[in-house]
């Protein structure tokens, strides 16, 4: 639960609608402004986190693609090495 809601003794999960209405009516303008600011902060933070997630997912995909290519090149390299070793023995 949000720390601010906890501070205001509000729990949207366990408080009933009537309780929430009662608590909402008791909040003063400063509490509401704090809620507004918190909401805005969370919205910005979430947007940044989503962007970071997307960036990391792209890095992950790129790494996986490169890992596949490296495995392929390594296999080719090993085959080449074996072939060249055979040739040098002959």
């Amino acid at each position, binding site marked *: 639960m949000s720390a601010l809601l906890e501070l205001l003794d509000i729990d949207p999960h366990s408080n009933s609608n009537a309780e929430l209405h009662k608590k*909402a*009516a008791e909040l003063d303008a400063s509490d509401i402004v704090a809620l507004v600011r918190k909401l805005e902060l969370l*919205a910005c933070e979430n947007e940044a986190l989503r962007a970071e997630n997307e960036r990391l997912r792209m890095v992950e995909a790129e790494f996986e693609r490169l890992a596949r290519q490296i495995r392929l090149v390594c296999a080719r390299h090993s085959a080449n090495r074996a072939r060249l070793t055979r040739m040098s023995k002959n």
Partner: protein
Amino acid sequence: MANLLETMGLDPHSNSTTELHKVAKDMDSGEIMDLMREVERLSSENAMLRVEVESLQVKKQSFLEERAEIVKLIAAEINSPLPENEADGLNGASFYLFLFYFRACSSLRVHDAHAARVAHAHPQAHPARVREQRGSREAHEE
């Protein structure tokens, strides 16, 4: 700006505190409840996104460690002694591996001084050097 705030005509960035106080005083309990629920929803989403970012960062770290391991293997492969007639093919393959390594670096957008050091320490992996070696060998054979 959060959608809910927009629909309520609130903008914490451009509204002054006095303006926000004025709007807050005019709000009914239903609107305040919407605010509370939205704060709760965004908090849960925030926690979930943080967990996701953390797990992806752990994954990225393990990829970086794996990459360091690959670099070591490539360096060992390049340094392994070879009979004269094997040099061309293996230098080509080593350079190919190096190409992938450098592409991995650039895809991460990480300034990797280590990559530069490895490349400097193993100049034989560069195609110009391979060509030069081949040229001098052919000249010697003639």
